[in-house]
């Protein structure tokens, strides 16, 4: 019974899957390079042009795409920063002390990962209209916490838990205050974790669609919603849609490539340690 699956068969199966995984992206690149008049005629013979990118990034067709792009940057960075400020101390506390209700508290935080977005969005929509937060950066940053905060707390908790408390105890003996021990000893040691979780949280915030769809109109609208605008109108503008989709994918992809090594722990909330 030593029959082995031939290696080439396994490779062929892999290549088949990766064709499925990569073809759509490659096809978008092709679509985005097509001149507008060649969109529906011949498929594979055309002279590539950057016209679609110029239109999309030049804010033509009445769609302020660069503004959406900047908006995405601002609200994603804002959400990550706020999550780090409140999330790191919470993660540290829950990793270092077993206090009454700590497990329930952590589960509550994680459970927001599983809540249907629309449950809170609709009341928030009504509330934001009243408070003047509708279609604002503050409103978006506030609501994106739902996505980024549980991520920061849960992943950083497992990083802090892996850190031996003796280092901080030594620092305390040297006359550091607890705050100093946290800021100067514990935090630098989990630095790579903080970097990875920040980038991961950024990606999740950037990719969110429901919150900006309902809680913004155009002032604070983000690229995920903005990219859909090119599909509207009287005739479908496939090349523009493709270009917009590709441009909006660039930041998360660049970040993903830089944090690839840490991604597993992040994606699984620390449940699979490797």
């Amino acid at each position, binding site marked *: 019974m030593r029959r082995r699956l031939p290696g080439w068969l396994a490779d062929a199966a892999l290549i088949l899957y990766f064709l499925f995984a990569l073809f759509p992206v490659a096809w978008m690149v092709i679509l985005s390079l097509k001149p507008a008049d060649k969109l529906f005629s011949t498929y594979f013979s055309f002279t590539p042009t950057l016209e679609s990118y110029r239109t999309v990034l030049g804010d033509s067709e009445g769609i302020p795409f660069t503004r959406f792009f900047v908006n995405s940057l601002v609200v994603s960075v804002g959400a990550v920063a706020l999550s780090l400020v409140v999330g790191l101390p919470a993660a540290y506390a829950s990793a270092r002390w077993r206090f009454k209700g700590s497990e329930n508290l952590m589960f509550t935080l994680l459970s927001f990962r*599983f809540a*249907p977005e*629309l449950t809170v969005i609709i009341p928030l929509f009504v509330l934001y209209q009243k408070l003047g937060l509708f279609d604002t950066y503050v409103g978006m940053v506030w609501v994106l916490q739902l996505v980024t905060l549980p991520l920061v707390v849960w992943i950083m908790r497992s990083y802090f838990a892996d850190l031996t408390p003796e280092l901080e105890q030594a620092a305390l003996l040297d006359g550091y205050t607890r705050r100093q021990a946290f800021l100067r000893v514990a935090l630098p040691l989990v630095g790579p974790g903080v970097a990875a979780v920040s980038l991961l949280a950024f990606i999740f915030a950037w990719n969110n669609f429901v919150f900006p769809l309902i809680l913004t109109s155009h002032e604070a609208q983000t690229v995920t919603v903005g990219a859909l605008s090119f599909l509207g109108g009287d005739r479908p503008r496939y090349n523009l849609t493709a270009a917009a989709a590709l441009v909006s994918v660039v930041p998360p992809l660049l970040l993903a490539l830089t944090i690839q090594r840490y991604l597993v722990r992040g994606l699984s909330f620390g449940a699979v340690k490797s």
Partner: protein
Amino acid sequence: MRRRPALRPYLLVLPALLLTCGILYPFALGLYYTLFDFSAAKPQPDLVRLHNYGTLLSQDAFWNSAWVTVLYAVGAAGAETVLGVAVALLLHRSSPVGRVLEKILILPLMIAPVIAAIIWKLMLQPSVGVVNHLLRPFGLGGVQWTDTPAGALLSSIAVDVWVYTPFVAVLALAGLRSLPGSPFEAAAVDGAGRWYTLRRLTLPMLWPYVLVAVIFRFMDSLKVFDIIYALTEGGPGDSTMVLQIRAYLEAIRFQRYSFGISYTIVLWAVVYLAAMVLVRRLGRIQRGAAEVSG
């Protein structure tokens, strides 16, 4: 360090807790709204207590949505599990081809699902999409992918599979790499075949790792919104009208706020209960696995 049951941990958790309350408040507000007949047509709502939920549960539209949602979640999570584990097993053999491909495995996962849905929408256009163009030589050039009920549901599941299979594959691969080597050596010494080893050793030992991914995918698919919104908007007919899309249409499009929210509350209750049961069971399975292998 632990001697003084201090206030400090509570103080450290407090800001995160306050932010969380900022979300709990609208949630409670939403729950409160569902007790009224609050809508654009009725800005001065009457208290109707549980009437919204009664209406909801007596409507075929709700049960249709619930059914479609379950079909979608089971279909997507199931297909992603099978495909993801298969891809992980193939990559684990680590051929030169595999090592190159592994580096780009996570690519679809980093693309916003709504963008992925747009991409697929363009590719699946019946007359001008590339999928039918490629199928034409095989006599299948006219498939109405998203314009028939079954096609629309299958297409949206396919987009979910495209986006999230790497998620299962990445976690399964990490699991495979952290499995202890000795059982496999023992099996090899005993002359166990490849298929036997896979079925009796690899898959059972891998399952606790994969389960994390399966649970995440199942819970997430139950509350799918962006993929369906961009691909089919619930149609044709009600064939892809999952609960969150129905809630969106009721609350935002038709401005029946209370009624729309009651859809999401029912979904929330189901997802929350499922999460509690699954996470608890997961803990038990992982503890069991730890005892067996360590």
